[in-house]
């Protein structure tokens, strides 16, 4: 076993989260009626737990690495990871503005590209079919409202 920078970073991240939770907990009120404990008690317990676990993980990370780790995955490929991430963020921006169908189609195309698809025309057809299908199913059959966005004139008032 060897020291891993990622393990150290994650361990310290857990520790930092615990300190953050503790800091916010300090601003919560403590009065609690008959129980004598308020809404800040369990957060304090959770903060203490996360801090202790962060210390424990850090100890393991600095002394030969986390114990009993499964087989490692090697060879991180940034490009597919970024395509998926980009697709999700584009979807986040587009959905309330351009509507569910366009956002879903863009997300589909980005993820398919990230997983190595080189057939954008096929992907576009499937993406549109799937998004329109889901949209109509949810809006017409399940009465769940989804934003129609730019395509509102084409969808005849369905969605919001």
């Amino acid at each position, binding site marked *: 076993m060897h020291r891993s920078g990622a393990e150290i970073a994650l361990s310290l991240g857990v520790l930092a989260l615990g300190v953050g939770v503790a800091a916010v907990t300090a601003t*919560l009120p403590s009065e609690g009626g008959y129980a004598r*404990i308020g*809404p800040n008690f369990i957060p304090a317990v*959770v903060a203490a737990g996360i801090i202790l676990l962060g210390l424990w993980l850090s100890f393991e990370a600095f002394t030969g690495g986390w114990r009993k780790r499964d087989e490692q995955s090697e060879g991180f490929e940034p490009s597919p990871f970024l395509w998926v991430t980009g697709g999700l963020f584009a979807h986040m921006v587009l959905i309330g503005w351009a509507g569910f169908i366009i956002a879903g189609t863009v997300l589909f195309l980005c993820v398919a590209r990230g997983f190595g698809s080189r057939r954008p025309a096929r*992907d576009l057809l499937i993406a549109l079919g799937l998004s329109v299908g889901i949209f109509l199913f949810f809006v017409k059959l399940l009465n769940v409202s989804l934003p129609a966005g730019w395509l509102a004139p084409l969808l005849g008032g369905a969605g919001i």
Partner: protein
Amino acid sequence: MEAFNALLAGFGVALQPMNLLWGLIGVTLGTFVGVLPGVGPALTVAMLLPLTVKLEPTGALIMFAGIYYGAMFGGSTTTILLNTPGESASIATALEGNRMAKAGRAGPALATSAIGSFVAGTIATILLTLLAPLVVDLALKFGPAEYFALMVFAFITVAAVLGNSTVRGLTSLFLGLFFGLIGIDSQTGQPRFSFGVPELLDGVDVVVLAVGLFAVGEALYVAAYHSRLAETIEKVRGSLLMSASDWKRSWPAWLRATAIGFPFGTIPAGGSEIPTFLSYATEKKLSKHPHEFGKGAIEGVAGPEAANNAAATGVLVPLLTLGIPTSATAAILLGAFQNYGLQPGPLLFESQKDLVWGLIASLYVGNIILLILNLPLIGIWVKVLEIPKDLLYAGILVFATLGAYSLHQSWVDLLTLYVFGLLGFAMRRWDIPVGPAVIGLILGPLAETQFRRALSISQGDASVFFTQPISATFLAITAALIIVPFVVRHWGRLRRG
């Protein structure tokens, strides 16, 4: 007798045409999504939850029972036909099932899995019917202190005892507990950790956490590490029927596996993983054909598959009678109840008799639907398996984001989803289990409520948890679970050193 009458009334509910239809839709959808490679039962249930928002509770929960069973079955089809390191609960099936398929015996492997699931599921449902009223009677005597102690016991077994590492299991649990704190405190109305963001005041939705960890996290992980890994799908050649010798070798395995799976499901032991492996080991030991193990022994499929289904039903015992989820999937099912303002537990058996017993009756019906539906439809499931990975993950993410967005029609939930996706990616990459986080999110707020109620009753006296016998027992067992392995390890080291 009382249970029998209640069950009959339950069948009256479950056999209503609309409820039968919901059951049928649930089983079919559950199988369809469960067959998709990389989509386990927990994710299947979480992704399909938004479909039921506008249904009335009984129909919705019957549909969910169908989805739950369908997802289990769909998962085993994938494991048998696709050699992929998939869900932990189906690894045991993969050992023999995939080798049977490679040897051209996919048909009998699928058949023993389907019929074994039916046999085990039905026996386990009968056991659930008999056991539930007894547990309910016991649970009615529980006060807040007992519930709290029981929940602590469930937390510790799921997080600390199972899995590779106690510290990483507990880290996952505490992350879930922290997410559970976000939102308005149910006792005082005090907002906590919401930082003025309106979407966070409602708390973290279990669908967003589960879909983020399981779907977005998995997509990011597979994209980054395995996007070019090719998988081979075994063809289903020849007959689906099992030979006389297949039957003879399968049925004892089904029965033994039910006896192993059901009890493991009812205790907080993380669902199906342990019983499927135990069943596999048992069959290997008892088999008259031990040399076939590793080359495609049918007992090695029949046992784990039956154990998986029996455990899946066993999980419903603590879920329905105590309101305590013991697996990630059960935690999401509990979230489905909560969406309707229902809290599973002994009181639900009183106040919503028709719903609870209708649900239990629908489990019998669901098992029959699964048996009738799945073998004839195997051709369709194979087609589903053949969906290429690029289209598969693209479709999963379109559906996954929809579930999160439909909560508040807000992009904030999509950002939360991505953050949980990154977390899921990191947890997968660095071997931190995700199940405890989902259980912590759902069970944490319930445990806090019971804790504060117990202290309200005792006027702030914390000794209440140790002076009540049931509560003290649970806490003592919990402490022993943590301390004993630690002591044993260090004692051994001391004696050697």
